[in-house]
């Protein structure tokens, strides 16, 4: 079997999220070095605060200040911090019940080693130097043996509330398209189009994905198709896509390559857009180092008879 292809794939997105009144107050509070919880109707204080009581599902919104000091309720020593985590040096993940709260907040604890951490230890928030209204405004927790810190007496009302957060997310993959698609891409590098024939219905699929979607069976028999083909249907694109260096209007078409039982799609060039038609015979135009046909152009042959491609429209 020829080598299966692999390539890095990075999925990255800045998720923009709006905050409700409770989360907005909490994150604005962090920006101002004030920690707020929310009071349930039975008198518990939830930190971090949520908009609905996790027990009764009742809507809750009474904000109360809690202290920046608290007690570790459980912990785990992280000797190898990963990308994006609060500290770059070894640290403990901790759940901390802040003084005045009935529930615990997840964050990092800066400590010299696992022997310096225990459940029940007293800790204090270390604020980030620059704060903008996010959970990372708490840089981390640090051990604290002093007395409980005073509350600021804040009522949870701020000017200039934080109403949203941007949470960037990035995941790194090594993508492999698998056997069938690797075969297709490898063939393209030699300017050939290959499909795979279904052992059951005998149809040739291109690009091949290793399975016949009609029969639900694996395909393996490689079949060279094209290079010429027939336009089975098309559309005229009038909107210029960003980062796409093609003048509008242009034509995007379904093209049934000779020998294939499934049409693939590609751009039609070398002919005015309003002269493209169903049945037009086309051939691929390759550019140097392109990896796949840049577009398809008319071959000059007579148009294909509708009967020859009607199953592929």
């Amino acid at each position, binding site marked *: *079997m020829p080598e*299966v292809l*692999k390539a890095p*794939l990075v*999925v990255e997105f800045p998720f923009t*999220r709006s*905050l409700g009144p409770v*989360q907005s107050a909490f*994150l604005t509070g962090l920006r101002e070095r004030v920690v707020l919880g929310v009071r349930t109707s039975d008198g518990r204080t*939830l*930190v*971090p605060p*949520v908009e609905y009581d*996790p027990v009764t599902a009742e809507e809750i919104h009474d904000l109360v200040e809690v202290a920046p000091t608290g007690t570790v*309720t*459980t*912990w*785990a*020593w*992280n*000797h190898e911090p*990963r*990308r*994006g*985590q*609060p500290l770059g040096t070894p640290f403990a*993940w901790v*759940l901390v*019940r802040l003084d005045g709260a009935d*529930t*615990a*907040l*997840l*964050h*990092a604890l800066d400590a010299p080693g*696992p022997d310096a951490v225990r*459940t029940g230890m007293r800790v204090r928030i270390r604020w980030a130097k620059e704060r903008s209204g*996010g*959970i990372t405004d708490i840089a981390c927790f640090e051990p604290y043996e002093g007395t409980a810190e005073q509350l600021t007496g804040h009522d949870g009302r701020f000017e200039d509330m934080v109403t949203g*957060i941007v*949470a960037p997310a990035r*995941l*790194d*993959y*090594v*993508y*492999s*398209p*698998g*056997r*069938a698609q690797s075969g297709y891409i490898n063939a393209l590098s030699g300017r050939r189009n290959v499909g795979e024939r279904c052992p059951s219905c005998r149809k040739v699929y291109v690009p091949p*994905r*290793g*399975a*016949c*979607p*009609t*029969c*639900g*069976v694996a395909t393996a028999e490689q079949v060279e198709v094209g290079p010429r083909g027939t336009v089975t249907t098309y559309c005229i694109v009038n909107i210029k896509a960003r980062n796409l260096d093609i003048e509008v209007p242009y034509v995007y078409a379904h093209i049934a390559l000779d020998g294939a039982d499934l049409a693939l799609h590609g751009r039609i060039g070398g002919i005015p857009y309003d002269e493209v038609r169903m049945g037009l015979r086309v051939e691929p135009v390759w550019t140097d180092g392109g990896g796949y046909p840049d577009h398809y152009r008319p071959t000059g042959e007579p148009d294909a008879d509708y009967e020859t491609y009607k199953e592929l429209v």
Partner: protein
Amino acid sequence: MPPIRDIAVVAFAQTDHRRTSDELSEVEMLIPVLHDVLDRTGLKTSDIGFTCSGSTDYLAGRAFSFTMALDGVGAWPPISESHVEMDGAWALYEAWTKLLTGDADTALVYAYGKSSPGSVRDVLSRQLDPYYVAPLWPDSVALAALQAQALIDAGDTDEPALAGVAARSRSSAATNSHAQVRGSRAQGEYLVRPLRTGDCPPIGDGAAAVILAAGERARELCERPAWIRGIDHRIEAHSLGVRDLTDSPSTRLAAERAGAFERPVDTAELHAPFTSQEVVLRKALRLDDGVDVNPSGGALAANPVMAAGLIRIGEAAARIHRGESDRALAHATSGPCLQQNLVAVLEGDAR
């Protein structure tokens, strides 16, 4: 209330789970399993009344990745099909309800996951609360470690006991040819203390499939159907700091609603990817030493994410098919620290 119709698991198949399968696309990995499970019943894809799958785009790094896998089930001409962005155990739950309505008599349920292309510890962090937790990037092992420490502090377990769970699981897996990690293995170094490598599931790729059938159809397709006597799933509050991490009330409630406590079970297939989670589940499910827990080796022997829960139901059913069990409990979980839990009770006909 007893189910309106009797519905059984009549066939189960799975891949040999492996650390990587990069020579195969998802559908290429899945097809042999789909054919295997159909062959066990003699059904063709066109005979199946309802198809439901479980998988996640976050493992593949691609949107709508499950649509590619549909090529493997013969989705043309159009079939009755659905998908859950969860473990296949929840796809099975959806299929079970579909059969209960009477709209279908058979269902194909499949699930797959390839963890090898990415970093599954980081991938799973994207399912966390996006406001307060996900920006800190706590990985799946770290969250499980917090739960393990809570159990140790509560006196429910200790590191040697956790090592014992790991050893028993992998020794049970010695006879499971599909398992990824079999036989004795060192507990290893701490990944996130107090969890060592041996306390954590292997990272790997795999797929599984199950066929459900109702009433007489089940008897035609399987010599000893594994009847689903009850199935239920429940969820905990999403904030970890609100929960008692040493307990799993959602598992207990799901088990109660599934009828698990009405009579003892002889087998329990628990979806506990971390050794410490087996401690929590045994307590929540009131399992004593008379119950054969994870004879397959469980998720500590193979944990293809999104399929591992469905595999628990499949393994429990297969024991009933083989006559090795009469009444089995199967459990599946999803989310951090046993956030969501599904319990099914399976029985064979009296012998």
